[in-house]
């Protein structure tokens, strides 16, 4: 009677998770665990699904706990395939938590067992996971430094090169298996790895393949991702017109998919691209669109970036009133979010602008009059050349593609 009840609860949990309601699924699985079962294979399946549900809910500590239980159990009952799966899931979770070394051990275990069992599908999946761990590892170290893509320390380069090799190995197998969806995923991440390595032509080739497969499947989210990644690669190839075309496709799809955050990102990219093309009117147009959405989503950091960009674009057009307006807003927001380097940049912009406008700009403005005090307290007394240098460093840092958030 108790056995049936645990099973019933677990089945309902499975149904709910498949329907996309992981939160409700979790409570059924946890109820099933409470009831308990002596059937360790059933329990292993429950732990595994609980781990995955928590993973999708971004509760990684819980995911780690349950995948760990599953691994222990699979080993206890000598279920080799079950152990491989638990190892893979544990590896993915450790990766998200930033524990790359342990993640590699787990994913390698998944790979070894899959090969031992001659399980080609499992082998390919383990290779993809390993690629992802090395990619994250490389990106994590890279984002701590101040590098453009392609200008990387050796440890970062070697991690990214390993990622590329694992994706290539994965591609060989999934191509043999005729698994187009898996090919699409591997091409996408391979493209991003080449991008970080500074192989922008190879990145374009991979993302073009990704785009092709996304279209085959009518997968518009994947299509949008491919456009966005292609845009990024063309920026670094110096082909800004082409980049702008891809960003426009991204924007179009973001609007169709009603994803405001992605729409904002596309507008921001377009604003930057038109700045590079020195078409400041269009740049302003897109940065304003980005600003509106950032405000709507209460994204202060995005709003600050928009103001910074708008300040620059208006300065370039010689519209100093608007430039000062946005530089002041940038300063306000930088203070609000505690962005010290942003605050400093805003102050420097304002003092530059003040110098240009010189006498005409009011000197009793509180923000302006205290600016030199804060500058001194931040840096001590520094020559002008030093200021410029520190600004450039900050800009280089911001240029590095940022850590991917956990939204994917």
């Amino acid at each position: 009677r108790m056995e049936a009840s645990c099973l019933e609860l677990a089945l309902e949990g499975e149904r709910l998770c498949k329907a996309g309601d992981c939160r409700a699924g979790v409570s059924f699985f946890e109820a099933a665990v409470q009831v308990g079962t002596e059937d360790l294979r059933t329990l292993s399946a429950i732990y595994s699904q609980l781990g995955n549900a928590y993973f999708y809910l971004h509760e990684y500590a819980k995911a780690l706990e349950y995948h760990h239980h599953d691994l222990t159990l699979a080993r206890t009952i000598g279920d080799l395939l079950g152990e491989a799966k638990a190892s893979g899931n544990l590896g993915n979770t450790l990766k998200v938590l930033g524990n790359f070394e342990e993640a590699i051990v787990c994913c390698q275990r998944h790979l070894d067992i899959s090969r031992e069992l001659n399980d080609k599908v499992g082998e390919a999946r383990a290779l993809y996971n390993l690629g992802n761990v090395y990619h994250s590892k490389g990106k994590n170290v890279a984002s701590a430094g101040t590098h453009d893509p392609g200008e990387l320390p050796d440890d970062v380069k070697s991690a990214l090169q390993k990622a590329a090799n694992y994706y290539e190995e994965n591609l060989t197998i999934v191509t043999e298996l005729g698994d187009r969806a898996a090919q699409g995923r591997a091409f996408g991440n391979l493209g991003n790895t080449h991008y970080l390595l500074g192989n922008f032509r190879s990145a374009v080739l991979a993302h073009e393949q990704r785009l092709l497969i996304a279209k085959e499947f009518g997968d518009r989210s994947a299509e949008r991702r491919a456009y966005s990644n292609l845009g990024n690669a063309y920026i670094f190839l110096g082909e800004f017109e082409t980049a702008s075309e891809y960003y426009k496709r991204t924007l179009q799809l973001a609007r169709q998919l009603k994803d405001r955050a992605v729409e904002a990102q596309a507008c921001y990219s377009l604003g930057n691209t038109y700045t590079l093309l020195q078409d400041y009117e269009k740049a302003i147009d897109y940065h304003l669109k980005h600003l509106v959405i950032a405000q709507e989503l209460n994204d202060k950091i995005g709003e600050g970036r928009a103001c910074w960009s708008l300040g620059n674009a208006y300065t370039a057009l010689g519209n100093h009133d608007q430039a000062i307006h946005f530089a002041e807003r940038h300063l306000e927001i930088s203070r609000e979010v505690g962005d010290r380097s942003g605050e400093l940049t805003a102050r420097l912009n304002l003092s530059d602008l003040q110098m240009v406008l010189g006498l005409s700009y009011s000197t009793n403005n509180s923000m302006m009059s205290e600016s030199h005090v804060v500058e001194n307290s931040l840096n001590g007394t520094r020559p002008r050349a030093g200021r410029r240098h520190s600004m450039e460093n900050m800009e280089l840092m911001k240029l590095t593609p940022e850590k991917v958030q956990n939204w994917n």
Partner: protein
Amino acid sequence: SQPLAGHQAAELQSKVVPSKQILHSDNMEMEPETMETKSVTDYFSKLHMGSLVYSCTSKRKTK
């Protein structure tokens, strides 16, 4: 001081927005992770295959 301001404006304009001065937050868009899945029904169906097959065939026989 008008020509001086003009000169400064021109100087500023040329300094503003060099290509590196762009806050490039180009989010790299990664593909989703793949998780390995287990199901209680995988094992359940194997476990009860015998009795299910039996009940099906016996139902057929009774028809």
